[in-house]
């Protein structure tokens, strides 16, 4: 059965982390009664050593995660430890520096550490919140399947638009070609690709076209109806004299026109609008899926490079402190 990393092995790492925090805090308070606390006292060195070891261990998670054949415990156990000991690190390092900050390398290392831990907090939230959202949004469809369906809808749209005319075909083609999904980081995070604008432009053009066609259809039908009425009157008047005459042909032509002309186009436009709205819904869903995935993972762009920067700053901090011992 699936067990959240937050309660891995009955929250073993939570207890470990709490223990470490309580111990550090107690030692700090006791020591602060004896001397002015800072990173250079014996407690300062001890907390600093614990903090540095924690950082190295937390960084090793990045390596462990990528080693699928490692025998050193489950990744979910490592993640549990990573999260809880990361929280403990925030306190241990703060007590190590004894709230002394300045414009120097040491505070740079601390700031980087805080940013890494804060981005990690977001990561924990994202890993708890977004996977179920993503599942609900997808409704069983993978990104690939959604893309395939969108492509098929594009095909159908073009086929239908082709029946309407060049203008509709061009509009559809432009709409299809401007369908952009995802994009840069900001666009993925906010789901704001220019797709919507283009698709709405196409839709409004199609609605105009439909209205135009409907008007034309109504006009044609009215003309045809009056023609038909005229033809029928004439036919009735001339029936005995010319039973196979030209008026019958007129009547046939009028019926043909009424059956095929702009009425079909109106139907096609309606079909196209229907297809377009299906595509719009599907694209929106895919965009949301892309957004959730981006929200689920973008913090890593901060977390990982800054943790490497932290490694550099930590090494520089340790070396510098002992150069000027």
């Amino acid at each position, binding site marked *: 059965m699936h067990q959240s990393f937050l309660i891995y092995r009955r929250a073993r790492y939570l207890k470990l982390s709490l223990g470490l925090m309580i111990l550090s805090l107690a030692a700090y308070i006791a020591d602060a009664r004896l001397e002015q606390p800072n990173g250079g006292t014996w407690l300062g060195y001890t907390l600093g050593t614990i903090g540095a070891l924690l950082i190295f261990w937390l960084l090793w998670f990045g390596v462990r995660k990528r080693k699928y054949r490692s025998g050193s415990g489950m990744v979910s156990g490592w993640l549990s430890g990573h999260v809880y000991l990361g929280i403990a690190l925030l306190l241990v390092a703060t007590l190590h520096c004894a709230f002394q900050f300045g414009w120097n390398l040491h505070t740079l290392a601390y700031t980087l550490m805080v940013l890494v831990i804060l981005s990690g907090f977001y990561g924990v939230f994202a890993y708890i919140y977004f996977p179920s959202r993503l599942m609900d949004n997808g409704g069983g469809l993978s990104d690939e399947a959604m*893309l395939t369906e969108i492509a098929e809808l594009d095909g159908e749209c073009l086929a239908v638009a082709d029946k309407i005319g060049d203008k509709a*075909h061009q509009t559809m083609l432009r709409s299809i070609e401007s369908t952009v999904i995802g*994009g840069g980081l900001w666009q993925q995070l906010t789901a704001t690709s220019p797709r919507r604008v283009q698709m709405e432009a196409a839709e409004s053009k199609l609605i105009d076209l439909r209205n135009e066609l409907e008007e034309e259809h109504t006009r044609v039908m009215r003309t045809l109806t009056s023609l038909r009425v005229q033809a029928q009157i004439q036919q009735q008047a001339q029936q005995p004299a010319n039973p196979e005459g030209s008026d019958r042909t007129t009547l046939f032509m009028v019926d043909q026109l009424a059956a095929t002309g702009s009425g079909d186009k109106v139907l096609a436009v309606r079909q196209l609008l229907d297809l377009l709205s299906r595509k719009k819904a599907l694209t929106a869903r895919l965009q949301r899926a*892309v957004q959730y995935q981006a929200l689920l993972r*973008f913090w890593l762009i901060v977390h990982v*490079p800054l943790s490497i*920067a932290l490694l550099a700053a930590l090494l520089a901090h340790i070396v*510098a*402190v002992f150069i000027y011992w």
Partner: protein
Amino acid sequence: MRCLIRTVTRASASHATFKDSECLGDRVTIGRAVGQHVFLPDLRVTLRHARIALAENGRFAIVSRAPSGFLHNGQTTQQAYLQTGDRILLGGYEIRVIPPPADYDLALEVERSRSAKGQELREALMSRVRIGLAATGFGMRRWSWALLLLILVAFLAVPAAGLFHPPLSEKLRAIPGLPSDKVWDVGELASSHHYFGTDCNMCHQKPFIPVRNEACLSCHQGQPWHIDPSLPVVKSPDTDCTVCHKDHNGPEGLIRTESRFCTPCHSKLNAQLSDTGLFTTISDFSHTHPQFKVSLLEPGAGTQRAVRIRLDWTGDLRERSNLKFPHAKHLQAGGVKGPNGQVKLDCASCHTPEAGGQHMQPIRFEKNCHGCHRLTFDPTEPDREAPHGNVQAVLQTLESYYALRALEGGYADPAAPEIVRRRRRPGEQFADEERAAALEWATQKSATVGAELFEYRACAICHTVDKPEPAVPAWRISPVALAQAWFPKAHFTHARHATMDCAACHDAAHSTSSADVLMPGIENCRSCHGDVGDRDRLQSTCVSCHDFHLIDRPPQHAALPSPHPLAQAP
């Protein structure tokens, strides 16, 4: 124009079939409509998409009729001149211009570039899809490497380079914005070190070696030792200045005042130095600090030697000042009788603090006693006084005074001879016998008055007076030995205790003898002062009262005796 249109159908990569058709006329039409010369059944191609015609310059030109245009050798365009080898891409089709066979003006090869239906649309869609963070160009690996290198170079490598080449270090420090060893500064220096604050190497002289004493002593040359260099202390506190002095703790944070820097040694000193008998075990103020020792002057011939005696000594603890001064008598509630009537005295009448307020000014006769204790000696002239402080001067004063009175005459004393009592008339001359008698009287009188002054009336009231030989009029006043610094090993400041009543520490009101030692014991201090951590009393450390660098020790930079452990100190 005669144009060959060759349609290529590829079943597999190695097998293709060709279908040739011919077009005669002034143009070749391209589109999805039935009847176009080059028929391209692709939904992205419009019905009549483009046409090829002969241009005025004799070349063939392709012109698009659809706004979407076409790709000509990879470039989207509306029109282009054609030449052999050109490639036109329209939807999923590629139109290649091939060398025309004989009798043909133009030859085109048309091939559908991708086979499955709908695949083109999907591929076209995929080209506009960017999903996943990897596609955004924010490569974590690249950023990680960039930040790693930037930090290591700017915050470690460049500042460290200055260690090997000091001129570089100076340049880096001088130019703002450049990474120098200033980025390693862990906190503000003590204000006394601010003046060289930018030069880290004033103190940090060797990389990876903690700050050494030599760095401190190069400026602090006169700083005396804490312990007597001749004492065989195993671990001397003088070996390492940084034990007590840690900089970068802010303007006031240079001196560490915690008692735990003292007690590790002072709680064991009597064991370490048992043969000296100098030390007791002290681990705190509240319980183990011994009773105070007062420093009393021991009267001696010519010199006065200070001896330190514990206040709880069961022997005869007396101050032998050779002065008679009952505090109680001077402080009585009704006041004392002065020359101008009753005077109400209090402590401040005589004890005034010296500048700075630490100690009290020494008591002086002229300033503190003379107001009441007049040195008059002759009732007929109550304003005339003998001088203070010099026996011979007193005797000479008396002799010359009475000689003058004898020779003047008119001295109203029935015991005096007639020649002294008789008033002189102007121009009257003494006979030799008369003169001798008058001076004889003056000598006797000054001796009598002197004995009275020294032995009963003036001097003996306060001083111990000896007269070694009764016949000779020469008295000796025992030298006054008033203790000036009662507790020379501690720095007590009266000014900081000004809110207190004097009587809280000094029980002068009940002291009837100047031999009483009126200094308060440790129990008196303990009623207000406690150790660090004490909740009810003022938290005090060793250095609240004691100095570490003792002024009676030699300066630290002086050469050390060779057997001393400090001589081997780094």
